[in-house]
């Protein structure tokens, strides 16, 4: 069966952005999660945290106007907004480990039905590099993942248990995928929203563990963003 195409990466990020409330302190993982900031709904103030010691950063500066002492965890140039603060790495990870962030949005290679996350390496080859990934999975009141529903090789990314090296156990509470919005509760995966173009059976066939229904399942509706 062909892999259903579903949402683009930015569309997944858009959907995740809708759930971030006004006033939230948020950390966005490197890569696709960074797109979430672009889709912050009008009228909500969100304060972004980056591991290297900045709260309250804004958009990237124009090319040529970068100050390389003002970067985010992905080493990209940033700007700061009113209310920003600088602090050292121990305070920065006190914010993370201490659960002071409201939301962390992370990428995923695999998410298990127990909420385990694998997102830092695909195997034992090459140079391992973990950064703040293992801290962030325990670093917010609510930790969510955004990811394609299925890997490029067709393997499910929502699985019974992770086969890639673990980043953390029992840490993810919701997954936003290209096909669905899925909560993780003691039962396992619970479907909340589903892409209208895929049937429940098709969705289940591309998911590595039972997808439970518990209450209404609504359509996953996202703007075009073309």
């Amino acid at each position: 069966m062909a892999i259903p195409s579903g949402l683009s990466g930015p569309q997944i990020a858009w959907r995740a952005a809708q759930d971030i409330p006004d006033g939230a302190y948020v950390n966005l993982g490197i890569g696709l999660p960074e797109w979430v900031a672009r889709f912050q709904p009008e009228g909500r103030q969100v304060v972004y945290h980056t591991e290297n010691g900045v709260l309250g950063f804004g958009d990237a500066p124009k090319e040529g106007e970068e100050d390389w002492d003002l970067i985010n965890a992905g080493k990209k140039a940033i700007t700061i907004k009113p209310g920003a603060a600088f602090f050292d790495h121990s305070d920065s990870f006190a914010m993370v480990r201490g659960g002071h962030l409201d939301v962390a949005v992370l990428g995923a290679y695999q998410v298990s039905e127990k909420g385990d996350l694998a997102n830092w390496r695909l195997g034992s080859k090459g140079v391992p590099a973990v950064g703040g990934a293992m801290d962030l999975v325990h670093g917010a009141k609510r930790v969510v993942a955004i990811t394609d529903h299925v890997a490029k090789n067709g393997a499910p990314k929502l699985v019974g248990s992770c086969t890639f090296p673990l980043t953390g156990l029992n840490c993810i509470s919701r997954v936003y995928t290209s096909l669905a919005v899925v909560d993780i509760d003691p039962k396992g995966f619970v479907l909340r929203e589903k892409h209208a173009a895929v049937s429940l059976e098709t969705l289940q066939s591309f998911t590595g563990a039972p997808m439970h229904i518990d209450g209404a399942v609504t359509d996953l509706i996202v703007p075009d963003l073309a």
Partner: protein
Amino acid sequence: MRKQVGSVGEATASINDGSRVLIGGFGGSGAPIELIHSLVDRFRNTGSPTDLIIINNNAGNGRVGIAAMIAAGMVKKIICSFPRSSNADVFNSAYAANQIELELVPQGTLAERIRAGGAGIPAFFTKTGYGTELADGKPTACFDGDMYVQERWLKGDFALVKAQTADRFGNLTYRFAARNFAPIMCMAASRTIAQAKDVLTDGSIHPEHVITPSIFVDTIVEVAAPEQEEVLVREERVY
């Protein structure tokens, strides 16, 4: 995202019976007198909040602030390092009459336990107290040939602190040595309430001069002419 409220009573309104309250200050420096007195006022009017667990370096001085809370009978237990000060009669009487519990913690361990609470560190090892009665019953361990005591984090439901300047985002600075326990208490509380002499409505604190970043602060209230506890104690004021 609006953190500023209009009165100290409003700021402390959600503190209820049995709350664990971290209160900044060392002796009279940094004591958030107006926030504390708003709790005393509410207790006198409504009988609540009571059975509070208070965490502070001391156990009240004179007859204001924490001493006024103890005198009012609102405090079930105090966790502190130095209850015996020159003006601790209120605590001493309550303690002698078994009306208040005391958990005595070495000052640096108190600070580190609070910081650990804020930093998500459930336990740590320290040399402080090893072999003394204050480590009785605590786990110990040997690292690199030295013995250490295991201590647990200490968190609060609320923190009350006295800042010098706040901005509308909740960033804080402090005045001189009034800083003391406030930054770590802001980290260790589920809900942090700061009174500030000056709340910036336009602009914000310089990001390199921020002492407590806004993420650790939930509620701010301007108290433009705050009382200084030591001054009140020397004037023998009674609240």
